[in-house]
């Protein structure tokens, strides 16, 4: 009787331990892992990765003096190596604005405050080029979101948005990217939706674009009204997605189908 009980307990605890181990295993996948070999090699080879054209433009912009202050990024920051971990930890809290800002917004704040120059338009070639150049410096680095407690309300808001059903199709981000990832939506493999490679050169766009542009694509697909370009929801979603992807290596600038 007691022998049977011990045997049952042993088997039970072994199963329990293996379940716990399985849960601990990291099952997160970058969209890179779901791409065809040819698109992967396009990203891997700098001479084939179209996003590198924007990186090259960004390098030129980094040292170009602009604005009433006649200053270049390099005049304050020095070499671009100083940007080594920036894309891996953004969005960050901006004390002046009292809210989190993404990398593009940070670049525009620098232009306004230090260069006294016009803000670059969202998704414009120059803004994408500077962002790609800065993000390139974090390639291979693990995503390491800031633990600034002032970000917490925005991260929570992003987590709620991710689960919120929207649009005529009444879908949430989580229904596809948490519950049905790796399955086929028409011809497309649904990725887990980790922001591991932005800005990305998307073959569908034939151009470089930000996470914001990608999020808008999903919202349009859900037949939801996309948030305005400068609305806080995108930064909230990005903050949540960066937490969700913590530790995954950054590939920026990536290529995606």
């Amino acid at each position: 009787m007691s022998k049977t009980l011990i045997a049952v307990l042993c088997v039970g605890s072994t199963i329990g331990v293996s379940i716990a181990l399985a849960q601990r295993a990291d099952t997160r996948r970058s969209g890179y892992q779901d791409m065809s070999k040819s698109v992967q090699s396009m990203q891997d080879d700098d001479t084939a990765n179209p996003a590198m054209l924007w990186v090259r433009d960004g390098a030129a912009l980094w040292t170009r003096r602009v604005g009433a202050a006649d200053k270049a990024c390099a005049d304050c920051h020095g070499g671009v190596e100083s940007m080594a971990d920036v894309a891996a930890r953004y969005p960050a809290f901006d004390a002046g604005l009292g809210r989190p800002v993404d990398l593009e917004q940070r670049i525009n704040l620098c232009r306004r405050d230090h260069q006294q120059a016009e803000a670059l338009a969202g998704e414009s070639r120059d803004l994408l080029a500077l962002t790609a150049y800065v993000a390139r410096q974090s390639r291979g680095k693990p995503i390491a979101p800031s633990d600034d407690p002032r970000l917490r309300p925005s991260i929570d808001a992003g987590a709620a948005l991710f689960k919120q059903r929207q649009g005529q199709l009444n879908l949430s981000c989580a229904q596809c990217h948490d519950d049905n990832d790796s399955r086929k939506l028409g011809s497309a493999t649904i990725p887990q939706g980790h922001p591991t490679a932005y800005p990305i050169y998307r073959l569908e766009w034939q151009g470089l674009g930000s996470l914001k542009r990608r999020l808008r694509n999903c919202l349009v697909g859900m037949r939801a009204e996309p948030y305005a370009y400068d609305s806080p929801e995108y930064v909230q979603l990005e903050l949540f997605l960066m937490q969700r992807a913590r530790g995954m290596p950054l590939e920026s600038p990536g290529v995606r189908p």
Partner: protein
Amino acid sequence: MRRRLWCVIVAALCLPGASLRAQEALRPYAVTGDAITAALTGQAGDAMRGRAIVANRQLGLCLLCHSGPFPEERFQGNLAPSLAGAGSRWSEGQLRLRIVDAGRLNPDTIMPPYYRIQGLDRVARGLVGKPILSAEQIEDVVAFLATLKE
């Protein structure tokens, strides 16, 4: 020049009418158990038209998530059960409710509500007050799915 101006004015006058039509109320229906037994339009749909709606990725959207007996259609989704045999598994009334508003049966379903305009958040501006499919289109789809026997 003047003719063009008139065109603009006529178009502007027509627009409010168009959006009023879009807001047109949905036809009422009664749910019995897990089915809507009566056709939304009062008459049976057309199975051939229904097949075209199901296969159309801008209209029915069905094959984005479901697969089915459509040998000519490449890249069918696999988020949801195959439509093959749907007509054996479900009655027309059960199919109708599952298309109209599957959330009534399972609040967590990923299946969009094809004939519901209430309780939706942040619907794209041009689509507010419009169901995904019209009552006639839903009857066509029901008529087609009912033919998918196993």
